[in-house]
């Protein structure tokens, strides 16, 4: 009888705990440790590969048959470099133009057409890139680049070029990160105080000179942050590159080279390697490398923003 009452009292206390207020901290804690859970789980799954192949051969080796993932890392870097280059070359003038040289009302009308690019699912980008853009690239753009820069072996079109490859992926990914880069750069430029511009005009500078010498240097930390965030988005992009990269083996030798970036390798190879635990574990290692790269990029963004704010 005593025991029953005690148990009932205990239950009442524990059930009493189940008020809304007490659920807040567990949710917060869960969100806080989610990152560590992901890091730990993925690293744990990649340990077998580390044990079999060793760190250097795993990460820097380029032969997938020997479980080397270096080729995929190189491919990711190449595609990221191409797309960030294009995004900056086209996006920065766009951001400046929309912020400085267009009346605010028209700018507000045009900006959504760039922001809506962010809403298009990445697999749709892959489809568009493959079926609508690839022919244009193969028949018009690539020969143009070859004719202009073909004296450098890196820019010569390889045999049997179908259009799929690092360049196609790079261009389509650049379009994918326009909203990120242009949006954040635009915001950074608009945050430069009007007083700076007015002072520059008062000293007789033209609008372009003001942009070049006053606005851009002050917005530079924001633009660099936009750049780093764009890099983070491109490196993590999976479905679009899966459709467009061509699925090659080694390190790409030309800018058009078919290759397999890290994300596409994971997405494509899990299905084929379910029976091979070392290969699966190597794929998890790729995932862990991606995770580390994201971590370092966000650290870099925070450093840049902090330095910008102090300046």
């Amino acid at each position, binding site marked *: 009888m005593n025991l029953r009452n005690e148990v009932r009292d205990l239950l009442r206390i524990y059930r009493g705990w189940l008020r809304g207020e007490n659920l807040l901290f567990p949710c*917060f804690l869960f969100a806080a440790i989610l990152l560590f859970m992901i890091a730990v*789980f993925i690293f744990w*799954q990649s340990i077998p590969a580390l044990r079999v192949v060793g760190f250097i051969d795993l990460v820097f080796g380029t032969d997938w048959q020997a479980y080397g993932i270096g080729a995929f890392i190189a491919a990711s870097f190449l595609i990221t470099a191409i797309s960030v280059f294009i995004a900056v070359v086209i996006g920065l003038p*766009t951001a400046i133009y929309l912020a400085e040289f267009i009346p605010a009302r028209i700018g507000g009308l045009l900006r959504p057409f760039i922001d809506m690019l962010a809403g298009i*699912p990445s697999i749709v980008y892959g489809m568009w890139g493959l079926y*609508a853009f690839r022919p244009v690239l193969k028949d018009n753009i690539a020969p143009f680049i070859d004719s202009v820069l073909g004296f450098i072996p890196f820019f010569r079109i390889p045999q049997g070029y179908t259009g799929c490859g690092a360049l196609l992926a790079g261009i389509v990914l650049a379009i994918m990160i326009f909203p990120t880069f242009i949006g954040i750069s635009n915001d950074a430029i608009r945050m430069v105080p009007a007083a700076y511009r007015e002072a520059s005009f008062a000293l007789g500078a033209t609008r372009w000179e003001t942009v070049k010498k006053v606005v851009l240097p002050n917005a530079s930390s924001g633009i660099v942050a936009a750049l780093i965030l764009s890099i983070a988005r491109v490196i993590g992009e*999976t479905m679009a590159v899966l459709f467009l990269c061509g699925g090659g083996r080694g390190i790409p030798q030309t800018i058009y080279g078919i290759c397999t970036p890290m994300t596409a390798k*994971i997405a494509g190879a899990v299905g084929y390697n379910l029976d091979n635990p070392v290969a699966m574990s190597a794929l998890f290692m790729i995932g862990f490398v991606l995770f580390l790269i994201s971590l370092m990029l*966000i650290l870099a963004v925070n450093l840049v923003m902090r330095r910008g704010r102090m300046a």
Partner: protein
Amino acid sequence: MMRRKLKTEMRNLNGRKLEERVMMIFMLLFTALALSCFFLIIGDIFTKGLGRVVEGGWDYLIKNKYEGGIGNEITGTLLLAFLSSFISIPIGVFAAVYAQEYAKQNVITKAIRFTSEVLASVPSIVFGLFGLAVFVFFISDLMELLFGYRVTFALLWGALTLAFMEIPGIIRTSEEAIKAVPITYREGSYALGAGKWHTVRKVVLPAALPGIITGVLISFGRTIGETAPIIYTAGYSPFLPHASPEALFEPVGSLTMGIYVGYMNLGLTHTVADLYGSAFILILMVVAVNVAAQLLMRYHARYLRVR
């Protein structure tokens, strides 16, 4: 006399005006290029996809993949998105409330905010791998041990993985919404004798609700278009999900996976037109969600602004 004055001024400008003209033309061209991308992509998907949907008619939207339609995929996408939102919204909003109202603002909370930022930029395929490792490998083994029941790909695993992806986004937008509630609201509530939780429930959250819902809608729209997290957690099924709880533990078809599977099987069971049809429906859904979010933001700005 005016003309001579202008000529003198021009000579003293050292081509600066020319430089400005050239740069402006340059920037205008690139801006036009950037803006045209949206129309190029949407135009292509719409023209080829609309044709496929019109050709298929209502059957296309209702029948499942086995019978030649994408009804199961539309249902699956909505199921995944709603279920994952159902899981991620409470966790995300509660975490945001705790971070803003209850937690002391010290280094630990800053570190946790940093981890939330990192989570938001982790690639989606890494979440997919995490879901694979935790749900398909670990928990399925556990379930086989405990219940003798083997589950590989399941709607529940996909929804959970998507929920994990949504949580950082929901936390970020909810924190902004809660931060935007004027402190006078809280002070008034405390002055009337209300406790902290009561204030949060009855004053802060209702005031932050439009911002929170906008954030939820935006993340809902992103979840609809996700593929990588669900390839190896939810799998694909050409059939409609059952109308019973066991559907939670079975693979489920979705629009994005349908495009992926269709691409892998081009020529055998799918045509390029099929892919475009799915893409068209997918974009329609995303546009609908984004339009709803925009309308909500405009309504919020116009009618609920603090005077």
